């Protein structure tokens, strides 16, 4: 029998039931710790830590920065959800990166090639992106269920293949059009009808929040409902928790692998949409890259929980945005990356420490009850 490594997977999957103040303690401790490490690095290079953090904070709350943060967070959120769907089933989809790039490219080309009435045009582009993302992910899924190829390897390899395919497609003879005088190359810009107007949500700036922020919110809700309220989600989580038990309960694991991978890929397809339909309108060489990997970090930071991921995405985006101001003050913006890495590590360490503290507290409680003569419970009655 395998020893029951009980609560740990819990903590990984973000299902820790930390109570009351303690649940707040973990992230606060973590952020303080990350700030401490960052301060040490800053001090070592002669930059005043408090001032630096103050600069970042001050800049971060300006209306325009808030818009930037929200927009980046929208994209990050979708990326993290795409990754998290796989994680919940113990599928490590490193291929989100390739999936969204290919999806954005093809969706952009389709969007640029047609003109449809407003909402229809947008829906078409988004559908194409989801289909392409899911289609690309399905290769890894099929390789896994048919040939037993680990999705870790296959998605790493498929990312590279997606790059090659994208490069081949993004060519004048195929999906790309030339912009005269530009050294860039991209797809035909999507017509007005296919664009999603920004929202003037934040007062005090002209910058607009991506209209598709609502798509991200909807995806988050959908993710939550699908996983926690549906049979399908139950099967998916069951498979993630114990494949053998899932099989015995009648779940077809292969089907679940394919479904989860397809869903993850479809969600990956959405990653590029806010940018494409809300800002770039065309997929070109400077379309943002590497979001799949950012998604992994944020999914882990948010412990695969839709709300946790939202916080993770906002924090990540905030740090990224405020990196911009640091350069203006001659502080190396790389410090932000060090901060991000430290936060990921320390958040999870803090959770662990808080958890251990709880156990110790529980133990003390039992001892005390014992001393005061309360009859002990025979069965393990830990709450």
């Amino acid at each position: 029998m395998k020893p029951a490594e009980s609560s740990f997977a819990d903590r990984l999957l973000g299902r820790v039931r930390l109570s009351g103040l303690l649940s707040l303690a973990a992230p606060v401790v973590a952020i303080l710790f990350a700030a401490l490490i960052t301060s040490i690095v800053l001090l070592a290079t002669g930059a005043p830590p408090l001032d630096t953090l103050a600069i970042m904070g001050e800049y971060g709350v300006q209306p325009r920065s808030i818009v930037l943060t929200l927009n980046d967070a929208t994209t990050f959120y979708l990326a993290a959800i795409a990754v998290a769907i796989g994680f919940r089933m113990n599928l490590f989809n490193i291929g989100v990166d390739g999936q969204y790039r290919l999806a954005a490219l093809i969706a952009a080309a389709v969007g640029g090639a047609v003109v449809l009435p407003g909402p229809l045009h947008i829906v078409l582009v988004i559908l194409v992106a989801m289909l392409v993302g899911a289609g690309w992910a399905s290769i890894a899924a099929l390789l896994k269920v048919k040939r037993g190829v680990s999705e870790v390897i296959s998605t790493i390899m498929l990312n590279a293949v997606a790059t090659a395919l994208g490069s081949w497609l993004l060519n004048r003879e195929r999906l790309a059009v030339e912009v005269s005088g530009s050294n860039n190359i991209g797809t035909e810009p999507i017509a007005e009808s296919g664009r999603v107007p920004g929202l003037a949500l934040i007062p005090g700036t002209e910058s607009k929040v991506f209209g598709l922020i609502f798509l991200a919110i909807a995806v988050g809700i959908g993710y939550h409902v699908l996983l926690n309220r549906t049979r399908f989600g139950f099967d998916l989580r069951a498979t993630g928790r114990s494949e053998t038990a899932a099989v015995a309960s009648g779940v077809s694991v292969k089907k679940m692998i394919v479904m989860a991978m397809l869903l993850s890929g479809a969600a990956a397809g959405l990653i590029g949409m806010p940018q494409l339909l809300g800002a770039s309108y065309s997929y070109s060489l400077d379309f943002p890259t590497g979001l799949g990997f950012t998604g992994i970090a944020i999914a882990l930071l948010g412990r695969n929980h839709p709300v946790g991921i939202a916080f993770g995405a906002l924090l990540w985006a905030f740090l990224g945005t405020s990196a911009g101001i640091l350069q203006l003050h001659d502080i190396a913006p790389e410090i932000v990356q060090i901060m991000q890495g430290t936060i990921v590590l320390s958040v999870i360490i803090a959770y662990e420490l808080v958890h251990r503290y709880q156990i110790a507290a529980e133990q003390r409680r039992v001892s005390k009850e014992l001393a005061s003569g309360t009859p002990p419970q025979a069965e393990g009655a830990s709450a």
Partner: protein
Amino acid sequence: MTEERDTTAEMRVEQVERVPSKFRFTWKVLLLALGALVLLLSFTRFVTGAVDLTSAGAINATVALAVPIGLAGLGGLWSERAGVVNIGLEGMMILGTWGGAWGAIQFGSPWAGVLVGLLGGAFGGLLHAVATVSFGVDHIISGVAINILGLGITQFLSKVTFAEMKGGGDTQSPPVPKLDPVSIPGIGEPLKSLEEQRWFLLSDLAGILRGLTTNVSLVTVLAILLVPLTFYVLWRTAFGLRLRSCGERPVAAESLGVNVYTYKYVAVVVSGALAGLGGAFLSLVASSAYREGQTAGRGFIGLAAMIFGNWRPGGLAAGAGLFGYTDALQLRRGGESVHALLLLVAVLLAGVAVYQLVKQSRTQAAVFTGAGAVIVFALFALTDSIPAQFTSVTPHITTLLVLSLAAQRLRPPAADGVPYRKGQAK
């Protein structure tokens, strides 16, 4: 319905049975396989005229490209054999590239660079060990964090070191002192003339031999020696047995008085050091300066090579070699060589199809594989070259192809990635 039931059942067989293949990989089998491979390459080279398939240059480049991947893979092997998943190899490798260049410049010696690179990677490993072993943090989270940190730290350090040096900048170091490559004396020239005869098999052998014996860096030799050394240490020593037992069943090790934490720590730090060495190789041997982004995902590829090699040193060396070889071919004369590889793949697929039909009586599989062979052959016959964009992914596609052909019997250490805490045994 029937279909679905079948697949579920198959899945179970794969999951539950996990029969250790009784097929033993002996020296004889290995040599036979290598011989067959050379013969096949030689045949393909002879038919297509793609001389680079077995040229000394390609083999030499193969080794150079395979070494950093292999070292990262070895790093992964050490760590995962002790039960700690190491997705932070890329970050540790990045620390190695920076450390390699900085050490070499600072102390004026490439060997000092190798050492500092090693230490840089080991530092990343230590961080990973602290997080995963002492704090019980999930291995993947920690690994991801280390990848981010590795990049951030080196960027930052470059800014405060290399940027100040002449010829350096924020994103690159000045040129580093180099190690001169070595050759086995006296055999290069004769082999070269033999190779140039373009005789079937003989010239190919000469090319391969020359590629392996001339113009090789001592660090490369060291890296290659690390493969058998790793095997020896992990499979033939008491230390190695204990280390592996921590990856298979840590509670069993604990119950016999093995200090699991210590072994995990050692394994993960060594893992980082090996990845760091791979990084140092990149900045010191494969090129002559540190550049930001120099690792270009090799840490991940190393991880893939390790899985490919079934968590064994020989297998991972084969994986790294395959990747290095195909990468060398596509980089050197992509259009021609990769096109020739199509023929090789067609022959290989046909062989597999025959094997499936005759030895395994899997008619359906054989038909599929056979059809694949025909398609690849048609592709070979009907085209002159591969679109340039696609040659760059030859190694990746080859890896996928090999993995999907080889019946999957991959078996990670049983407790790989499972957090362990002392005294939790039931």
